[in-house]
């Protein structure tokens, strides 16, 4: 009896298509990933169940774990006005070149009396060596001046547009945060946001049983 012979098939598969797919996916992921905006210093914010997404254009006050305060003027539309305001209100006497330099900075982390000097340096100070904006008790709270300039730059506009955020490190001490809050309050700003990491709502909690209506 003659057995039907199966034709031997080649085990080679054409890999071109698979290769195309792999690299297509790769390029998609690389291009679709947003890179983090530059940060003054690494800060690990606490987590909360809040689902509101933090807007990127924000006046961000960063509090590091050793209590240093940095200010990021992320609101490009008002940045120039804020810097001009602080220059005139605190008589910093910055030259136009220094002003231009200051406007280009991503974040501010030196006291006002050091600001002019630090702008003249050829090598900028490294963020980790910056002393931070003084934000102590009422006697030495320069953040108050900065926030005043921020709120001045919003004159005529509703303060609702002001997106003021505090981003603090888990390990920052509470009094440092309180000083930041009091700097806001002194300028009659009572609404601000705290940047947090998202966290799931714990099961078996009131919130999980009665979720609130989604925010408009």
């Amino acid at each position, binding site marked *: 009896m003659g057995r039907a012979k199966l034709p031997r098939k080649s085990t080679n598969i054409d890999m071109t298509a698979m290769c195309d797919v*792999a690299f297509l996916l790769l390029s998609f992921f690389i291009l679709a990933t947003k890179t983090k905006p530059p940060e003054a210093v690494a800060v690990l914010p606490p987590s909360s169940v*809040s689902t509101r997404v*933090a807007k990127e254009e924000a006046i961000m006050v960063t509090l590091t774990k050793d209590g240093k305060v940095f200010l990021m003027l992320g609101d490009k539309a008002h940045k120039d006005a804020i810097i001009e305001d602080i220059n005139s209100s605190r008589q910093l006497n910055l030259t136009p070149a220094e002003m231009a330099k200051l406007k280009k900075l991503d974040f501010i982390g030196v006291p006002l009396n050091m600001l002019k000097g630090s702008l003249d340096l050829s090598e900028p100070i490294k963020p980790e060596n910056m002393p931070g904006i003084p934000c102590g008790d009422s006697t030495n709270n320069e953040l108050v001046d900065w926030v005043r300039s921020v709120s001045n730059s919003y004159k005529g506009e509703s303060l609702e547009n002001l997106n003021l955020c505090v981003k603090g490190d*888990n390990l920052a001490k*509470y009094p440092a945060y*309180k000083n930041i809050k009091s700097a806001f309050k002194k300028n009659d700003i009572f609404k601000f946001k705290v940047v947090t990491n998202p966290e799931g709502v714990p099961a078996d909690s009131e919130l999980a049983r009665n979720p609130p209506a989604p925010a408009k």
Partner: protein
Amino acid sequence: MAEMDTSSGGGHKKGPGVKKAKKMSTRVDLTPMVDLGFLLITFFVFTTTMSQPTAMAMNEPKDDPDNQLKVKNSGVMTLLLGKDDQVYYYYGELVDPNTQFKGSNFKEIRQLIADKRNATPMGDLMYIIKADKESTFKNAIDILDEMTISNVPPGHYAEVDMSEGEAKLIKMTEDANGIK
């Protein structure tokens, strides 16, 4: 007639002894390239954190000493944030620290907050949060988050400065419990 070889270079007539160059296959084995591609994809997928930071809205009250909110003693629970993620609490007014002042932590406090919420008429309910100078930013945010988790409506909790007596009490308790 003489013929001219029009074909350029390489077009030499091969003699009988010259072998023809073997035609190479243009097919390349793409398997390693696919491997590499997927390896990179996996790497990027695993190293990318998808976290979009969220924002927690804060509404601070205006400091107004003439217009202080009066709350009923029976509806008040005071939460004190101490060192090392400790939470202390008492109900109503602190009269006798030995019996009223109790220690807890962030795990247990959720149940206590919910119990108080369920036991108190909503109109009387008030949580007073006082943070010690040794507590961290994380504690302050976490306790506000606990309020959200327990569905305590805004306006029924407030951050208040700690009195000296309470700070001392926390210090004593911490010393007694050996919390550094």
